[in-house]
């Protein structure tokens, strides 16, 4: 510390980790420029942006949910199961209550009820995981591995494993609305989620409580934080967000099924870690997670432009990106930490 000025810097409630966000932004810009340079005619097309905006909200919202649980030092492997179970409950309700070919004014109230049911289901799923983790003290990774199986299992049982399709047309019409014929509704929902959760973490007491609990649960208890309450609430938020993602998936596919989006779980964990969420808990910002979501979407859309690059390469590339970022973070932060310790 060469800076010895007596004026205390305005204390920040958040520990600065902005270097990570800067690094991610540069990485995003680099990937973006690379794709542009390789296929300017396709990549810069408005239709390409439109399709990207359709694709990432569903897993992006779940990634934000997982990130919150990882900040507490936990993990939510049940996001996809929660999303599908919520969507199936909404779909079952719609199929039962809305006759085929019903007019919109008859379908709309039922759609609202179905959405509410799905959201309640998401909250309940999250509360259950949270209860197992906070009250029964089951390690989060095991507890949610169990609840993921359980929720998926329930979804299979109530549907006999069949997709729930032939939903009222109005539902997917609403779900696929585009503002100004360009911005898809799911993208708007994603933005709202990211902003609200981001503000909750950075501007409200929920943020520091989550970070402190994730850093040292024992010290949090001695400091008078309600650890159990915070944990249950966090998993409920994660479940709630998962059910939103489930509703989006249901609109896109115009159906609900117990095994949609099975690959999303690992992808969301990848995003969270890439976005700077500390897997040991205590650190992580929604801004970083959002940029990580965009990086993966740009990469994956970019890869789709090359017909001769097989889809088989996708995992190799994503895994590679993750490992590169982890190594860079480790090297850079490790250096910063050592310098900090010396000063």
């Amino acid at each position: 510390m060469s800076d010895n000025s007596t004026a205390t810097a305005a204390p920040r409630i958040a520990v600065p980790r902005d270097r990570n966000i800067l690094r991610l932004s540069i990485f995003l810009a680099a990937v973006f420029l690379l794709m542009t340079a390789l296929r300017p005619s396709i990549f810069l097309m408005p239709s390409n942006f439109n399709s990207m905006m359709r694709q990432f909200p569903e897993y992006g919202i779940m990634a934000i949910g997982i990130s919150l649980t990882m900040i507490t030092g936990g993990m939510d492997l049940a996001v996809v199961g929660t999303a599908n179970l919520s969507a199936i409950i909404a779909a079952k309700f719609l199929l039962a209550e809305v006759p085929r070919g019903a007019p919109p004014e008859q379908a709309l109230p039922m759609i609202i009820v179905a959405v509410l049911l799905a959201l309640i289901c998401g909250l309940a799923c999250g509360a259950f995981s949270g209860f197992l983790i906070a009250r029964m003290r089951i390690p989060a990774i095991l507890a949610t591995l169990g609840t993921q199986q359980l929720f998926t299992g329930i979804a299979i049982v109530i549907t006999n494993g069949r997709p729930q399709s032939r939903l009222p047309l109005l539902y997917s019409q609403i779900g696929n609305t585009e503002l100004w014929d360009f911005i898809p509704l799911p993208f708007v929902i994603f933005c709202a989620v990211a902003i609200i959760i981001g503000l909750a973490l950075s501007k409200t007491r929920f943020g520091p409580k989550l970070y402190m609990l994730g850093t040292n649960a024992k010290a949090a208890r001695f400091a008078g934080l309600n650890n159990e309450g915070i944990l249950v609430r966090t998993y409920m938020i994660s479940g709630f967000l998962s059910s939103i993602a489930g509703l989006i998936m249901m609109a896109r596919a115009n159906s609900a099924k117990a095994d949609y989006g099975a690959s999303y779980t690992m992808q969301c964990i990848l995003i969270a870690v890439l976005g700077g969420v500390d897997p040991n808990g205590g650190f992580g910002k929604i801004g970083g997670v959002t940029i990580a979501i965009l990086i993966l979407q740009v990469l994956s859309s970019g890869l789709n432009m090359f017909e001769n690059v097989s889809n088989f390469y996708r995992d190799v590339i994503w895994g590679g990106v993750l490992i590169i970022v982890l190594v860079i973070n480790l090297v850079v932060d490790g250096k910063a930490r050592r310098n900090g310790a010396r000063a």
Partner: protein
Amino acid sequence: MSDNILKVENIKKSFGGVEALKGVSLEIRKGEIHCLAGENGCGKSTLIKIVSGVYEADEGSIELDGKSFSRMSPMDAIARGVQVIYQDFSVFPNLTVMENLALNMELMAERKLVSYKRIRAIASEALAKLGVDLDLEERVENLSVANRQLIAICRALLHDAKLVIMDEPTTALTKREVKALFAIIKRLQAEGISILFVSHKLDEVFEISERYTIFRNGQNVATGETSGLDRKAFVRYMTGREFSEESYRPAKQGEVVLAAKNLSLTGAFKDLSFELRAGEILGITGLLGSGRTELVQTLFGIYKPDSGEVQVRGKRVRIRGVKSAIRMGIGYVPADRLTEGLFLPQSIVRNIVVSKLDRLSGLFGVLKGKAIGAEVEKWVRELSIATNDPSLPVQTLSGGNQQKVVLARWLANDLSVLILNGPTVGVDIGSKYDIHALLRSLAERGLAIIVISDDLPEVLACTSRILVMRGGGIAEVLDPASTTEQRLGEISTGVA
């Protein structure tokens, strides 16, 4: 041949522009027990590493057993009989006692094959040297800290040691284990081995050493015969400051703020009753397992008592949890600052305000940035926490300043009772006196304070009443002005 085993002169060593040693000297005579003392960061450890060949000095001379070195490698040091026992003992917890003892010998002999017969022979010989009896087949991770240290010592002796350096060897030992260690040190001395005992604990220095050297900020401040040193001088040499050691007296009898009536917790304490008044500092001491920590944690809502009652300001209360204890104005500074008290990688700001977040936020829980800034600035100033940027992680602070951060957290909550468990463990002497002075001034302003401590001089110096616990009950209540350390020790152990 000189009669010094080690003589270093005018050693200088810098790390990246920071001078750790600014020309220090140290002489150790053959067969003496020499104590090297000084506060954290005074350069003790750097000097040890230079003497054992780990670091190379920038300037200065080293003379080991009559031979001068300009450059010295760890192998040179070992060959000349220097052995260092580090704080962590450098033992392999997953290996057995005999493997740990014999491993270095086997490696140095560059053997390719393992013979357990030979290993056993080496190990038994090593243990026999100190007259120690340990199961050779036991894994080291199952041993107590004291026994692990014994293994490190035995291993060191295998190498024909002439100078054994012990870096703060008593940190994790109980009183009895320290006694046993001292007996072993005396035994080594009787065999003509010199001991360099590195410590900042004054009692130990007085008890074991014949001569001492004290460093401060990388320089020699004093050296001489321990018999000619007194406590006051020792503290002055270590810190460069003068401190008074009068015991605390409350100016007036305050009202009873906290009372326990026949409080019991199964397996911890039974039928305990006591009162705590505003403005007093109540010391609680007793051996580990006397129930003292459980007692205060019950008052803080961590445990629920099985019977009896707690009164706050004369009214019977039920403390349902930590939050409800805080609401009643009770704060608790836990014993282990690093694992229970602090959120190490988080900012100083967050560490201070964590228990007050609900009161520092408004509608929808939105944090009041200005109020938080003001609160933090106030406590950083009032407790003189040494930082110029409170958004830095709290782990960048020294032990004393970290403890002040924990104190600030509680003081920000307008408490009426503050309980401190081992408030100055791992804190250097200067900060220790600062914390004692702070506790006194808080008590003078009407706070009721409970201090739990093993450090008997501390209990005598900073409390106004002492409660000695033994076997889950109150053995005796004493006035610190008319009692002694020895008496406290006797009561805690039940000898008296």
